[in-house]
């Protein structure tokens, strides 16, 4: 049997999280709104009205271009893409054709086997979204709410090789979009939409065979599964001596099946031409520099820095940089704490992560601020509290919003620092358990742990175990 290589390119539509739509002042987000309740003459294509470009959309599009290592175009243009569909009220979509906001670009992925894969960007441009249609009771209904929502369309070169890689690319892209704050990137809400172009060729071949386009991929799982499914199908066709035809396929997530939508043999002619109602988008060298400067350190860069500067494991660094707010939290807590990075990392990956998970909050939404975590670790290091108490205090800080020190004091959670009282408590335990004392003295030294447990229990967990152990051994040896 021959071996095959799957060739995948992804086309993504990214909804920018601007306040208003790209060419009018309607709200950009109409999630959950009544159909046609968030529209105006401009976005619903009434005659005579004109588009006015939202500068925020340009800024966010340019920021994304910078994050993708693309070149920000100092003079980009808008064009009309002409076609008829009921969800497109003007009969043309305003998009960018030959002078897009970003040129070139790439994203580097670390594959599970450790290899790097560079996914090049073929196209990155701004455009307006169309509306939605649905068939109901024999009627075709149109909802224009989504018309004019700002999108970036981003198309990769055919640089991906498996469904797994495609899923990884999308996961990374989603994290990046949130990281730089240009999109909520919620696939369920359509903030991030994906179509996949799939073709198959014999291993070693450099030709691109006819591809199919899979639409309606609404989750990362769907992307992975649909591509796996389609590669299997195409390989089977080639194995049987057949030829893969260009289709558009629809992915049904419920049944995990692909169905053919239409043949792509004849490409539509969109008769692109410059949008005369808008001026070219000019960005000066200073503006471009300001946008590039405003780009935060990217996840991959930060991950590498955490490993290098804080000597964290690759595992820890990856988790801590999965979200920008988490990594910001880590660095602030570490700075305030001033101790070992690994300790802060452990607390965050274990206890803080559990707390966030239980409450459904992100790091930036916690009442427990980085300064609180640092203070808690100081209390622990200073022997004021022990580790189990620290875990309790962590939750209490989150619940009450008070500082760790305040909680330890108010709730009496501090360790006993009265050595005389502790000595008395130990003596009391020995006195009450003469048989065990005898056994110990007869050589059963393993009982020391049992005695310590009794002391800790009597103290309500407030005894410092190291001190208690020292006193215990002293008194047991004394007689």
């Amino acid at each position, binding site marked *: 049997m021959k071996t095959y290589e799957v060739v995948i390119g992804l086309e993504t539509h990214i909804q920018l999280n601007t306040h208003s739509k790209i060419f009018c002042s309607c709200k950009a987000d109409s999630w959950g709104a009544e159909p046609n309740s968030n529209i105006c*003459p401009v976005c*619903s*294509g*009434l*005659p*005579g*009205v*004109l*588009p*006015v*470009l939202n500068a925020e959309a340009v800024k966010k599009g340019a920021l994304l271009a910078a994050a993708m290592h693309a070149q920000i175009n100092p003079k980009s243009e808008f064009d*009309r893409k*002409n076609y*008829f569909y*009921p969800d497109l*009220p*003007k*009969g*043309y979509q305003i998009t960018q054709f030959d002078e897009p906001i970003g040129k070139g670009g790439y994203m580097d992925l670390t594959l599970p086997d450790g290899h790097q894969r560079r996914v090049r960007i073929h196209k990155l441009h701004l455009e307006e979204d169309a509306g939605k249609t649905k068939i109901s009771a024999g009627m*075709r209904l*149109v909802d224009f709410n989504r018309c004019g929502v700002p999108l970036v369309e981003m198309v990769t070169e055919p640089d991906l090789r498996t469904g797994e890689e495609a899923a990884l690319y999308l996961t990374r892209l989603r994290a990046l979009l949130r990281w730089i704050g240009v999109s909520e990137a919620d696939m369920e809400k359509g903030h991030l939409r994906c179509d996949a172009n799939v073709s198959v060729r014999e291993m070693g071949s450099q030709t691109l065979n006819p591809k199919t386009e899979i639409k309606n991929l609404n989750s990362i799982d769907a992307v992975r599964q649909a591509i796996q499914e389609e590669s299997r199908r195409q390989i089977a066709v080639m194995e049987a001596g057949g030829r893969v035809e260009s289709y558009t396929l629809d992915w049904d997530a419920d049944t995990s099946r692909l169905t053919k939508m239409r043949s792509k043999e004849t490409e539509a*002619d969109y*008769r692109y*031409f410059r949008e*005369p*109602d*808008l*001026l070219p988008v000019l960005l000066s060298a200073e503006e471009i520099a300001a946008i590039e400067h405003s780009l935060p350190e990217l996840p991959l860069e930060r991950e590498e820095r955490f490993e290098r500067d804080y000597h964290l494991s690759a595992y820890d660094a990856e988790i801590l940089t999965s979200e920008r707010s988490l990594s910001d939290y880590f660095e602030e807590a570490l700075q305030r704490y001033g101790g070992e990075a690994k300790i802060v990392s452990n607390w965050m990956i274990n206890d803080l992560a559990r707390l966030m998970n239980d409450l459904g909050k992100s790091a930036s939404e916690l009442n427990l601020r980085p300064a609180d975590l640092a203070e808690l670790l100081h209390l622990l290091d200073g022997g004021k509290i022990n580790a189990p108490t620290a875990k309790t205090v962590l939750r209490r800080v989150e619940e009450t919003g008070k500082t760790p020190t305040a909680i330890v004091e108010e709730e009496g959670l501090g360790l006993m620092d009265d050595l005389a009282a502790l000595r008395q408590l130990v003596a009391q335990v020995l006195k009450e358990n003469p048989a065990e004392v005898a056994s110990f003295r007869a050589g059963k030294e393993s009982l020391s742990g049992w005695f310590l447990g009794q002391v800790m229990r009597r103290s309500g967990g407030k005894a410092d175990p190291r001190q208690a152990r020292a006193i215990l051994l002293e008194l047991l040896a004394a007689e």
Partner: protein
Amino acid sequence: MTPVMDWSAAEIARKVRSGEISAAEMLAASLERIRLTDGISGQVGLTQWDEAEERKVHAFIQISKDLAEAQAAAVDAKAARGEDPGLLAGVPVAIKDIFCVEGTHTTAGSRMLANFRPPYTATPVQRLIDAGALVVGKANMDEFAYGSSSESSAFQPSPNNPWDPTRVPGGSSGGSAASVASTEVALSLGSDTGGSIRQPSSFCGVVGMKPTYGRVSRYGMIAFASSLDCPGPLARTVSDAALMLQVIAGEDPRDSTTSQQPVPDYQLALQQDVHGLRIGLSPDYDRIVFPDVETGEIGTEPIQAEVSRAVYDAAEQLARQGAEIVEDVPMPNARHGIPTYFVISRVEASSNLHRFDGVKYGYRTAQPVSDLNELYRLSRAEGFGTEPKLRILMGMYVSSAAYSHQYYLRARKVRAMIRRDFDTAFDPAGAYRLDALLTPTTPTTAFKRKAVYGNSVLMQYADQMTVSANHAGLPALSFPGGLDGQGLPIGLQLIAGDFREDLLLRIAHAYELATRQAAWRSAVPEAVRNEASK
């Protein structure tokens, strides 16, 4: 005493502001004049009418009496409170039906939009209303402004020329020009894509200006060819045109192609004479270049002799006022104006017409349809007249991926060459250093009804002298320059550099003053004469 409707807009506003006459009285006078001279308003599907209607003007599709009454009441109330009711207080205006006006139907002269009521008002119309003008009606026009005779309107009867009702008023702003010429209104707002304000102004003997692209907002004007379209004033005098431009010009946040350039005081410009101004004449505007309808071969023809003579007469008049006349200014690319326009305007027009699909508003076929494509096909086939269909066909062809390089992209390059001709002529360090170019507005005076209609190529060549200013984005003004042997108005055109509307107004105003005593100035259009004699 001069009849009220003969007053200039400036005179009306002055008298309304001083309380000499009320806005309500002005409105009544305008409606009465319309009743006497205009005849029935255009209607969709009307094919027959009384013989007597043949002599009427038919400038309107719709009279907006209620709207105008409310506006007049507002103006009078303001005046009564001692507030300033505005630069155009109580001035009756006709709005070309390409401008959306809330509270009216806005049809663009098409069956497609016969039932369309916009929920917004075009910026230049709103500025007129805010300045106290009274919107008395919507003026008839060529369907979607595609034409130069107004005959292609779906609303019939289409307008007649007030000077000779057997002739066309020109177009596409034919209703606008006819309403002003017949003194039904003092001012009209028109739109000019290839000459649609200036050519009918010329045919009807009024003043019409296409301002610099970006000087007046296009917001609310139904688009024909967006990169060429300019709203502008039609008036009976240069100073009225200046007054109206003053009100409608200026930046509009709703049209990002409007300029931030401040609007100068145009009345100040009128006070200056033409001493020292350099005014050019070009042999390329003294002939037309024309394809043979049968063979397609390009030939050159002289323009109507009386029109040519009027240009030279005007140049002499201006020279006597102190202007320097510069002859033989070459405008070598003027001859490409119409072919270039054929391509660019149709590409943009076909795209702009996409939105009329029977889905959201406007005409939808009454026939049962089996699928979406049939809904589109039938709605557009029944809703559009012949002109839009021809323009869609050609526009789609020349912008298709296969032909775009040969036609559309090439036309854009030629357009830049046309612009360069003007840059050279107006270059203050160049050989010509012109302040303005003086040309005829049209190669002929008004032609007979049905003489050209139906020949879309011939009709287009009526715009040969005007279209270059649209390509170049420059301001151009048409003003009356006499009558021909048949008593029909001759129009002269001035073209200046970007945002130099002030120069156009200044020169035309100087000419107007210099010819004040000329015999042709006292001639009255037939439509007005008929009324006056009753």
